[in-house]
C-alpha cells in the first residue's frame, strides 16, 4: 500500500488510486481517521467522528469496487457540515440546543452522496446554526485555521474548509447563506462552490435563512467540486424550492482537452467596487495576478457595475435574521433539543431552554429578526429589504448582459486573528460584502485559491455567474488551476498521527 497524503491529493486522484487498487477505501479511511484524531486537539474541525460507520462504508465501497461496481466517488471519504441531517448520527448545528440530537433521517444531499458511494467520516464544526463567518460561535469551541492556528478559518462552514485544507478529508459539504462556503474556502486556501439557489435540495439541511441557504461542496480543486456537485444536485420533490432543473454533469467542460486558449471569448466582468477602498492591497494584487493568468488563457475583461451591492450587507442582516427568527422557533425544548432542567411554567421553560441553548450570536439574530418582522416595523425593514434584494438581483442581470462571469476577491481581507472580530459584529458582517450578493440573487458563485499573504494566509478569488452557469464557473476555475498551483499547496501538518 502506498497511502497518499490527502492534503496534496484530489478526489480525482484518490479515485484513480482506488480504481487501480494502489490502496483500499478502508486503508484510506483508516489513514484519515488517524489524521483527524491527531489534528482534532489543535484544529477542532469536527464535532463528531464516526469511525465505525466510516469503516463499514469503506468496506462496502471496497466490496463494490471489487465487483467492478461503483462510480468515481465510490470509497471517497468525505465529511458533512453538522447542519446536514445524518441518520443515526448526532446533528448539532454546533449548538448546545442540539448537542445530543441524533438525526432520524438523512438529508437529500447526504443520501445522494451516500448513493454515490462516498464514505462519511464525520460532521464538521460550524458557526452555531451557520450564523457567523469565523466558526468562533460554535458551542464546541473555536476552530483554527490550519495555515496559522491563531487565525480564524472563516465560517460558517469553517470546519469543512479546515478539514479539506488540512488534508483530513479530500472533500466536504458546506452550506452558504451569505458566503459560508466561499469565505472559509478563501481563508483556508481551498475551492468551494455555492450553486444556483434550488440546485441542491434543502431537505434535511437545517435552515438558517431558507430563501438564501444553499448546499455546495468544498474540495481541493474545481474538478473535485464538479464531481461532488454532480452527485449532490438534482430535483427533489420534498423541497418546494428545489428547481426542476435536469441533472447535469458539471465536469463536462472540464474533461475536454485543453486548447491553447481554453477561455477564448470568455468575458470577465469586473465591478469597480470589488477592487475599491477597504479591500486589502495584497488581496487586490493577488486577484489581479490571477486576472493576468485568465487573460493569458484567452479571457477578456470588461467593466461592469453593481450599483446596489453596497446595500447587500444591511439587507442581508434584515432578511436572514427575519427568516432565522422564525426557523429557529421550533427549537423550543418541547419535543427535542435542549430543555432547561428547572422552570416554573410554560413561558419560563421556553425562556430558559432557549436562553441556555442558544449562543450570543444566535440570540442577537433572533432578536433582530423578531424586531424587523414586528407590527409597525415590517414595512420599513422586511418589505423594504425585499425590494432592495430585487434591485440587487436586477443589477446582476444587467451586468450579465455585458459579461459571462463576474470576478473579484471573495473577501476584502485574509483571515483575521481569532477573537478580533467576535467583539465587533458589524465589522465581521462587512466581511461578507462581496459574497452576499450571489445569495440575494440566487446566483452560483465560487471561491478559488489565488495566492498567499506574506503571513502565509491564503487569498481567494470569487467567480459569480448567471443562473445555472455552474459548469462554466467550474471550467474557468479548472483552467486557472491547470496553470497555477495555489490549490495544491498544503499547510504544515498539525498534531501527530
Amino acid at each position: 500500500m502506498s497511502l497518499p497524503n490527502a492534503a496534496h491529493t484530489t478526489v480525482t486522484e484518490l479515485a484513480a488510486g482506488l480504481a487501480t487498487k494502489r490502496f483500499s477505501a478502508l486503508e484510506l479511511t483508516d489513514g484519515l481517521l488517524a489524521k483527524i484524531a491527531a489534528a482534532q486537539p489543535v484544529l477542532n474541525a469536527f464535532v463528531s467522528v464516526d469511525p465505525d460507520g466510516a469503516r463499514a462504508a469503506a468496506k462496502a465501497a471496497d466490496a463494490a469496487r471489487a465487483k467492478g461496481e461503483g462510480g468515481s466517488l465510490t470509497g471517497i471519504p468525505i465529511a458533512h457540515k453538522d447542519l446536514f441531517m445524518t441518520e443515526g448520527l448526532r446533528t448539532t448545528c454546533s449548538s448546545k440546543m442540539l448537542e445530543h440530537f441524533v438525526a432520524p433521517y438523512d438529508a437529500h444531499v447526504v443520501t445522494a452522496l451516500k448513493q454515490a458511494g462516498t464514505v462519511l467520516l464525520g460532521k464538521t464544526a460550524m458557526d452555531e446554526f451557520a450564523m457567523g463567518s469565523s466558526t468562533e460561535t460554535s458551542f464546541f469551541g473555536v476552530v483554527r485555521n490550519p495555515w496559522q492556528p491563531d487565525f480564524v478559518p472563516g465560517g460558517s462552514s469553517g470546519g469543512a474548509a479546515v478539514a479539506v485544507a488540512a488534508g483530513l478529508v479530500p472533500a466536504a459539504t458546506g452550506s452558504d447563506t451569505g458566503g459560508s462556503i466561499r469565505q472559509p474556502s478563501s481563508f483556508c486556501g481551498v475551492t468551494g462552490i455555492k450553486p444556483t439557489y434550488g440546485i441542491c435540495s434543502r431537505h434535511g439541511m437545517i435552515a438558517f435563512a431558507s430563501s438564501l441557504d444553499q448546499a455546495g461542496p468544498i474540495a481541493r480543486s474545481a474538478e473535485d467540486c464538479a464531481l461532488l456537485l454532480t452527485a449532490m444536485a438534482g430535483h427533489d420533490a420534498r423541497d418546494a424550492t428545489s428547481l426542476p432543473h435536469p441533472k447535469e454533469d458539471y465536469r463536462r467542460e472540464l474533461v475536454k482537452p485543453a486548447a491553447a486558449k481554453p477561455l477564448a471569448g470568455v468575458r470577465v466582468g469586473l465591478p469597480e467596487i470589488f477592487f475599491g477602498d477597504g479591500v486589502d492591497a495584497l488581496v487586490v494584487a493577488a486577484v489581479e495576478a490571477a486576472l493576468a493568468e485568465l487573460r493569458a488563457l484567452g479571457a477578456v475583461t470588461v467593466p461592469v457595475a453593481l450599483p446596489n451591492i453596497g446595500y447587500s450587507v444591511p439587507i442581508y442582516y434584515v432578511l436572514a435574521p427575519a427568516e432565522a427568527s422564525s426557523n429557529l422557533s421550533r427549537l423550543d425544548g418541547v419535543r427535542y433539543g435542549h430543555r432547561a432542567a428547572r422552570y416554573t411554567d410554560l413561558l419560563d421553560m421556553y425562556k430558559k431552554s432557549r436562553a441556555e441553548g442558544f449562543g450570543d450570536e444566535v440570540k442577537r439574530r433572533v432578536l433582530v429578526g423578531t424586531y424587523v418582522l414586528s407590527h409597525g416595523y415590517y414595512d420599513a425593514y422586511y418589505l423594504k429589504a425585499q425590494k432592495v434584494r430585487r434591485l440587487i438581483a436586477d443589477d446582476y442581470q444587467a451586468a450579465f448582459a455585458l459579461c459571462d462571469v463576474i470576478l473579484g476577491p471573495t473577501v476584502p481581507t485574509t483571515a483575521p486573528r481569532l477573537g478580533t472580530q467576535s467583539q465587533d459584529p458589524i465589522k465581521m458582517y462587512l466581511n461578507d460584502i462581496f459574497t452576499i450578493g450571489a445569495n440575494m440573487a440566487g446566483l452560483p458563485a465560487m471561491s478559488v485559491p489565488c495566492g498567499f499573504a506574506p503571513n502565509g494566509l491564503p487569498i481567494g478569488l470569487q467567480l459569480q455567474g448567471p443562473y445555472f452557469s455552474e459548469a462554466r464557473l467550474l471550467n474557468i476555475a479548472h483552467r486557472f488551476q491547470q496553470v497555477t498551483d495555489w490549490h495544491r499547496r498544503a499547510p504544515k501538518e498539525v498534531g501527530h498521527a
Partner: protein
Amino acid sequence: MRNWEIVIGLETHAQLSTAAKLFSGASTAFGAAPNTQASAIDLALPGTLPVANRGAVERAIRFGLAVGATVNTTSIFARKNYFYPDLPHGYQISQFEQPVVQGGELTITTSAGQKTVRLTRAHLEADAGKSLHEDFHGMSGIDLNRAGTPLLEIVTEPDMTSAEEAIAYAKALHALVRWIGICDGNMQEGSFRCDANVSVRRPGEPLGTRCEIKNLNSFRFMEKAIAFEVRRQIELIEDGGKVAQETRLFDPDTGETRSMRSKEDAHDYRYFPDPDLPPLVIGEDWIARVKSEMPELPAAMAARFVSDYALPAYDAGQLTYSLGFARYFETAVGIVGKANAKPVANWMLGELSAALNRHEIEIEDAPIPPEQLAALVARVQDGTLSNKGGKEVFEALWQNGDRSAEAIDRLIAERGLQQISDIGALETIVDEVLAQHPAVVAEFRAGKEKAFNSLVGQIMKASRGKANPAQVNELLKKKL
C-alpha cells in the same frame, strides 16, 4: 333588544377532506392513537420542509367556484408566528395578504326570506395539534395527529344581523362544503367550526366594538353563544359601560361567553411570506378543469326540481339539503317516473327523513336504497298498499335490511297487507255491513252525516283494514 342592531361576521374553519395533510404525507384520519399520525414534517424536526398538497388546493378552488369568488392565480403562504406546545414549528402556515379565494357570496334562507351574505375571502392553512390538559396530573399532553391538517378558513363580511341569520349561513355553508365534497362536515370531530364576530350598535351609528367568540362547533352552541353575547353587550352599554375588543369562549355548561384574552394581550404574529414555499400558482387550465368537474350546485338543482318535477319550492329546497339526498331523489324518480315525483318527495321528507334522524345516520347509509323506496312508492300509488301498509313495509324494510327488489312484495304477502281493491269483493263486504247495521243506515238517511263515517269504520274493520278507503267511500255513497 329594541333599538339595537346586531352585526355578525363569521369565520369558519372547514377541514378539507384530503387523505394527507396540507404540507406532509401523514394521514388526516380522525381518532388514531395520539402522535401516530405525525410525520417528521408535522413534528417540525430540523431540516424538514413543507410541500403543498395539491388536493387541498383543488378543494379551495372548488369552493371558490361554488361561491362565485375569484380564485387567485397567485397566492402566498405566510407564517403566523407564535409559541405554543401544540404548534410544533412555532408558526402556523396560513395565507395572509394574498389568499387563494377572494370574494364570493352565499344565499341564505330565514323566516324573513332570502338574503345574500358576502364572503371576504377563503384561505388555506394548517391546523395545530391538540393540548390535553386532563389526565396528566398537572402536566399537559400533546397530540400532534391534527397538526398540519388542511383547513379552509372562510371569512364573511359583517352581513348577518341576527343569530338566526348566522345559523342559516353556517348551515348553508355546511351543506355547501359537503355538497361539493371538500369537507365531511363532522362537527363533533371538529371538521367544521366557527368563530363569530359579534357587535351591536344603535341604528345609523358606526359599527360597535366587536368580540370574537371562538370555536363554536355546533349550531345550537352558536345560537346560544351569539344570543348571550348580544344580550351581554347591550346590557353593558345600556348600563353605561363599553364593550372591550376581546376574544371570548363559549361555555356550553353555563350557556355564557367569557373573556379569553383582550386585544392588548393579542399576539404580534409577525406574518411574513413562508420562504420554504414558493407562491401558490394556479393555472387557468387547472381552474377550468375543476369547473368542468363541479357538481350541479344546490340552488340550481332546486330550481330544476321545481321546473322538471313540478315540486313546491319548499320540497325542492329540502331535497337539495345534501347531494346524497338529491341524488337519492333523482334515482328514485328515475324509476317510478316524473308523475310520482311528489309522492317520492313526500316519502323522503316524511318517513325517510324521520328514520334517518331517529337513527342518526346519513342517507348514504340508509338501509333502504332509492330503488327500493321507488318500488314502495309504486306499490302505494298503484293501490296495492295503503299508506298505512306502506309505512309498515317501510319500517319492516328498515329493520330487516333486505335491500332486494322482491323484499316489498314478499312483505306484502307475508303480512297480508294487500288492499282489497276488487269491486266485487268490496261490494260483498259493504252489503254485509249495511245489512248488519240497519239502524245506522237509517240515521244517515235521516241526515246524520256522522253515521257515514261509522259505516266506513265498520267496513274497514270487516275487511281487517285491507279495504281501499277511496273505493269504500265511493261504493258506500252509491249504495246509500
